[in-house]
């Protein structure tokens, strides 16, 4: 009976809408993420990122029943050293001219250069690099993932609100750790905090986990953090997961840890449930039997942005979708309490930053009192007057 009713409903709809069926193919071009994580809880799943895109497509398809649109996800997973260009070409050949990209910056740039030929539009769901949004920004890349500056500013606002303004910064020895450390330095300057000491944790290689690792770690971390000037909070800049998670409860001084461990600024966490987020978490858990991580969420959101733009424009053409997304008409709900929009000057999604301890959302930035003439979300990351981006 129900099926008949649905059918009748859809027939009426189809007639009323007079819309031609529109099938939109969305590629998911994703790297295989390393299994070198400090916590076993952070091991990437086989369907990392893809699962978020699939859920977004399922949500879009429910809407699509009423608008005569369908969304198909095509997975393209890259092995180590595999060519992103070849994978993008395969997606193009399969008809996917809208691509959700979970790629590190160098591969993303190469893929975006290639995408010029086919007119494809990429949605960056993981690379946090400032350069991709500034000097090297491109018209065919929409940034769904927050930049390092947005993440650092989100944390900085909260620490300043807490009056924890003396920071002890420990960074890893990888180039991206220096980028992140630099974002914290700028954030400290922007919001009136002070970095009282900076140290480097050298990555000497080797595995992260072992059966008796805790014994050594317990002795090493106090030594690493000893003798710092008085500080309020220990900030870790460690994108390669080499040491940050060793810091909490082990530092020489009894101080909270934030940054890459402890209180972590992020676009999403499996524990976030405010503003209706519980419903999204439930749907994800039901479909994929695991918690939704930050990359899954960014991929879900990218797919929802594609869906929203397709619904409103009645088109699957990348150029039309892009034009809508950068227009003032576009806004999207993402379970973060406010509407999200794109910064038209560099196509970065404006978004609140969650501060999560891995169990709870402790707070959400922008914090109260950080004001902005356009939108308080623009207190996070580089603002229009500072941008070096010239879209092309």
């Amino acid at each position: 009976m129900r099926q008949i009713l649905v059918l009748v409903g859809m027939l009426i709809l189809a007639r009323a809408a007079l819309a031609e069926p529109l099938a939109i193919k969305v590629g998911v071009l994703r790297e295989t993420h390393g299994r070198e994580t400090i916590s076993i809880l952070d091991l990437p799943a086989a369907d990392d990122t893809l699962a978020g895109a699939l859920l977004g497509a399922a949500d879009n398809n429910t809407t699509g029943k009423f608008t005569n649109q369908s969304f198909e996800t095509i997975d393209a997973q890259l092995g180590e050293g595999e060519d992103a260009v070849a994978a993008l070409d395969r997606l193009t050949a399969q008809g996917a001219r809208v691509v959700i990209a979970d790629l590190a910056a160098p591969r993303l740039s190469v893929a975006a250069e290639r995408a010029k030929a086919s007119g494809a539009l990429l949605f960056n769901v993981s690379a946090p690099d400032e350069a991709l949004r500034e000097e090297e920004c491109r018209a065919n890349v929409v940034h769904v993932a927050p930049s390092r500056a947005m993440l650092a500013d989100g944390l900085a606002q909260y620490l300043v609100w807490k009056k924890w303004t003396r920071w002890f910064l420990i960074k890893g020895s990888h180039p991206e750790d220096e980028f992140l450390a630099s974002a914290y330095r700028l954030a400290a300057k922007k919001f009136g905090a002070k970095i009282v000491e900076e140290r480097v944790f050298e990555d000497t290689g080797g595995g992260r986990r072992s059966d008796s690792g805790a014994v050594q770690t317990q002795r090493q971390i106090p030594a690493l953090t000893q003798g710092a000037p008085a500080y309020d909070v220990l900030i870790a800049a460690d994108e390669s997961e080499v040491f940050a998670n060793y810091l909490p409860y082990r530092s020489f001084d009894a101080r909270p840890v934030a940054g890459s461990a402890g209180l972590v600024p992020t676009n999403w966490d499996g524990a976030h449930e405010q503003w209706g987020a519980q419903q999204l978490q439930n749907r994800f858990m039901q479909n994929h039997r695991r918690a939704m991580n930050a990359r899954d969420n960014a991929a879900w959101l990218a797919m929802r942005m594609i869906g929203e733009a397709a619904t409103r424009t009645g088109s699957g053409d990348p150029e039309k979708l892009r034009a809508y997304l950068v227009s003032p008409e576009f806004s999207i709900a993402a379970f973060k309490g406010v509407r999200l929009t794109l910064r038209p000057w560099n196509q970065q999604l404006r978004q609140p930053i969650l501060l999560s301890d891995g169990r709870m959302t402790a707070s959400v930035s922008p914090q109260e009192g950080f004001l902005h003439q356009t939108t308080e979300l623009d207190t996070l990351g580089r603002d229009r007057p500072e941008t070096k981006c010239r879209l092309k």
Partner: protein
Amino acid sequence: MTKHPHPNPPPLRGRGSRLRPLQKHGLMPEGRIPSPAKRGRVREGAFGLALIAGLFTSPAFANLAYVSNEKGNSITIIDTDKLEAVKTIKVGRRPRGVELTKDGSELFICAGDDDSIQVLDTRTLQITGKLPSGPDPELMALSPDGKTVYVSNENDNLVTMIDTATKRQIGDVPVGVEPEGMAVSPDGNILVNTSETTNMAHMIDTRSKAIVANILVDARPRFAAFKADGSELWVSSEVGGTVSVIDPVKHAVKQKISFEIPGLSKEAIQPIGISFTKDGKRAFVALGPANRVAVIDAETKKIEKYLLVGQRVWHLAFTPDEKYLLTANGVSNDVSVIDTASLKVVKSIPVGPFPWGIAVAPK
């Protein structure tokens, strides 16, 4: 926010005025305000309760409002003549949408975390049973004849239809992602459901149970209301920040109402509950974390005034004589009372934690 004073600061009297410094510093506690004056008030309330208790057997004496406390797992009952809370009763987990039967004898309570709709006997104040809803029910609408209650089930993209007499499910309709707002046309023929992630108002023929139109509105539509004469349907979009005015015959959005409040960012203005006066001349729209209710000329759609109420205002309900409009304020744990003649906020009534839904008994 409070750095930019409202151009027409509404005079809050009595306890209402004490809310303001607390709001300003963001120090509003989750529970009730622990001030000596307030404690005195509670005792007075308890005393009043003893008097009122006798009246519950003949509810005609006091006119009552029922407020669901989302985090309190409770319903606060307000005497709308005296404008004070008279009783709090424990109900299921995460109560949100509340709806009274036409004769006021039963209150239906969406207890989302219990995946059920509880039935409260308003005479005995006992939970007498539950309605067979789907998982995570959030909002309901009652048919004009009172025979059917329509429920949105957020978790499985369904609208459920339940016979209020037999308490049996009589149908369901698949709708968009995260169904929420519900409204029934005054003639009972059209049911409207809004889906939060699909961003549509689905119009459903109540007899054939088929969708007859899907109307795109702005992001996260949360509430729908018909004017009393059925000429217009208004849908509020929480994240989009607008109210869409829909022609229910042509199935088209004919106008969008947007809001501007000096000193508040666009993102903070999040329309939720809508209430029309019976004559259809005026509408009140709750603006969520903007902590204001917009007063709108429902004919010209011009915004007449913004009234400062408690924090994160969700849903609204008129007293039967429309003398007062009550607002459930989620973060400040109170109900603001708007005098509809003077368009002033005249009182704030403390209720339980995170008040969300509100229903007023018929006279």
